[in-house]
């Protein structure tokens, strides 16, 4: 064979050698290209997220007051939080209460409205936009001022109550009711989870509903046996996202009630901010931030663990109950 087709033989040999080395070269080159494409994000991530996180972890073991160099104090901040700071425990209580009520309420409303918008009536596009608007204007000062006006002693809500012969109180400045005005504010901004639910609903094939209707299933049965299970991955996603947001809530309390009155709306993040910037206790505040991370991580892990019992992924098929 060599005698007849020498060129082919040598060509094959050459190509084999070249191909082997260029494979390594190519993959290294490709990796380098990939890195340079993500370099803007990577630089930002390291500089603005990882860097400050590590700094904050360090500060949590110091008594850093921002005006002078930090001194190492070990676990003192963490111990003080749980043994010698009643306002910290208040902040935990308030935040848990807030999350416990605002998250399910918000999701329930979002799902309810998404179900309504899942029909293609005329003008439904306009209504969808309108219902989404509150979550766009979000945590702004303008909304806070408006909320204070609405629920103040002389506000619109009390005037409406008067038509029904009821006398309202100053909801914002009331120790018992102020937290609920903030829950209401957050629930009112259900637009984002609503849109996500809507997207999820649209993915449910209508043949299922038709088949069920033919078999005589009522609306309730169809909702609980078809809609909810097929929507469960979306519910799972929204639950996690809204829960994390709930724990981190800050602007609503900071702008509307400033954590008061009497710490009845002292969100964790608001207390953290006060400690860091008003009391010059940045070290203590950093420790608070890391505890919050642990708390959110714990709850997220719990929800993930529970998901195998109630979340059905179509791709996995089958009934898990």
């Amino acid at each position, binding site marked *: 064979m060599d005698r007849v087709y020498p060129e082919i033989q040598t060509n094959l040999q050459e190509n084999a050698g070249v191909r082997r080395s260029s494979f390594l070269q190519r993959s290294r080159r490709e990796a380098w290209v990939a890195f*340079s494409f993500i*370099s*803007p994000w990577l630089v930002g991530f390291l500089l603005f997220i990882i860097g400050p996180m590590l700094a904050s972890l360090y500060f949590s073991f110091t008594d850093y007051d921002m*005006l002078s160099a930090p001194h190492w104090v070990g676990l003192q901040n963490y111990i003080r939080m749980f043994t010698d700071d009643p306002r910290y425990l208040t902040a935990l209580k308030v935040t848990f209460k807030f999350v416990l009520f605002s998250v399910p309420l918000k999701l329930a409303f979002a799902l309810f409205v998404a179900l309504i918008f899942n029909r293609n009536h005329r003008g439904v596009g306009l209504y969808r936009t309108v219902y989404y608007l509150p979550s766009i204007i979000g945590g702004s000062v303008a909304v806070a001022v408006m909320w204070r006006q609405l629920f103040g002693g002389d506000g619109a809500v009390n005037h409406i109550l008067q038509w029904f012969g009821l006398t309202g109180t100053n909801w914002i*400045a009331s120790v018992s009711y102020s937290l609920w005005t903030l829950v209401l504010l957050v629930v009112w901004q259900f637009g984002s989870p609503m849109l996500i639910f809507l997207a999820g609903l649209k993915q449910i094939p209508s043949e299922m509903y038709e088949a069920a209707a033919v078999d005589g299933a009522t609306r309730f049965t169809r909702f609980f046996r078809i809609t909810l299970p097929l929507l469960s991955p979306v519910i799972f996603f929204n639950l996690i996202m809204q829960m994390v947001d709930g724990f981190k809530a800050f602007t609503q309390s900071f702008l509307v009630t400033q954590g008061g*009155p009497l710490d009845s709306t002292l969100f964790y993040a608001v207390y953290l901010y006060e400690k860091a910037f*008003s009391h010059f206790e940045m070290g203590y505040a950093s420790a608070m931030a890391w505890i919050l991370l642990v708390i959110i991580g714990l709850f997220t892990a719990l929800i993930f663990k529970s998901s195998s019992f109630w979340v059905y992924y179509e791709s996995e098929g089958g009934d898990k109950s």
Partner: protein
Amino acid sequence: MGKTMKMFSVAAALAVSMGSLLGCGSTNNAQSGADTASSDSGKAASSGGSNEKIELHFSWWGSQDRHDRTLKVIELFEKQNPNITIKPEFGGWDGYWDKRATQAAGGNLPDIIQMDKKYLAEYTKKNLLLDFNPYVKNKTLDLSDVDKAYISGGYVGDKLYAINIGANALAEIVDPEMYKKADLDVPKPGYTWEDFVQQAKTLKEKLGSGVTIQGMLDKDYFEYYLRGHGQTFYNKEGTALGFDKKYLVDFMTMWDQLYKAKILTPIADVVSLRDHLENLPIVHQKAPNQPLWSNQIVALEKAAGRPLAMTLIPIVKNEGNNKSYYIKPGQFLSVSANSKHKDAAVKFVDFFTNSLEANEILNAERGIPISKKVRDHLYPKLDAAGKKMFDFIETAMKYSGDVPPSPPGEGPVADAFQRAMDALGYGKLTPEQAADQFFKEANQTLAKNKG
């Protein structure tokens, strides 16, 4: 993808990332006014040499009226000193100190900072402020016609860290018409806390259900009360409270009884109207009195749209030499110890304090000017409200003792006091419990000053 295409796209990606990083930097520098000043712009504009362009940063808090006046004064200074520009940074009291703390952490505090007594100790303890003494000695900062009483509040030890730019004292502002309706005269200076309680009851009786009395519930009012009893708020080292708890319990009991008798404005209204001067009850004739700092009479009268009277707050019966009153520096000007242009900054402080033209523009909105020359020059030009304020300070001087020191941590201590008083108002704590809560929190904060 061909080789050249690949290299081109890699180069483009790198260019975009570099460009965006640089772009972010420069847009920050372009912003001015109310935003936090970027550290670069100050340093870039300031180069060496005596007649080179100098750029100073100056931060202050206040109302819109104050902002307008201060900006005009800056313009005036820049006109007289063409090689100096001043970049202003202003806003409300809320958030002012948070911004300063962040700037301090970054080592770029403004060259000139409006300072408050509450934070002076904190900032001097961390060596963030310039000592003015050498500048006073060489007359760059001329304090020759300033009475010691006006300047003493700016000393920490024997170093002068802050120049008083507005003398102030606590005042009781009353509506003489409403008092007349209750057959009462405007209280004369020297009336006591017992007199006040009596008047409050009479006013509530005669003026009816739509009217309530405003209480004096801040830490500062309590400090006047303590001083009249011969006590000090803090101990000498500033490491703990320096008075017997029973004084606080008595003070709180006085207010508790007025709350329970529904004579005082309900706590919910007090809380929601905090820092909203234009909507205080006296403006809408829902209260016949309003305790305030004396420099706020001008804005309050403007909001009320009618003339109001100013008198002292109650003093302690037979207080003798334990003077309740003191002349408080309402705000100070300090210079950052890290300023790159200390001379220029001190020159501006001197201008602010001594220039007749500048003070005509400022019109004592921050309080009484400390320079006698300036006061005498301003007095004839003042309107009725302004004259009231000046006369008031003259009267208050007669009842005043030394300025009490404020150790680091006064901010959190004042917060804790307000929360304890709020708890009292909401009926959540008894006077004893509220006093206990305050003592625990305040002493915890002050204990950090040890060593």
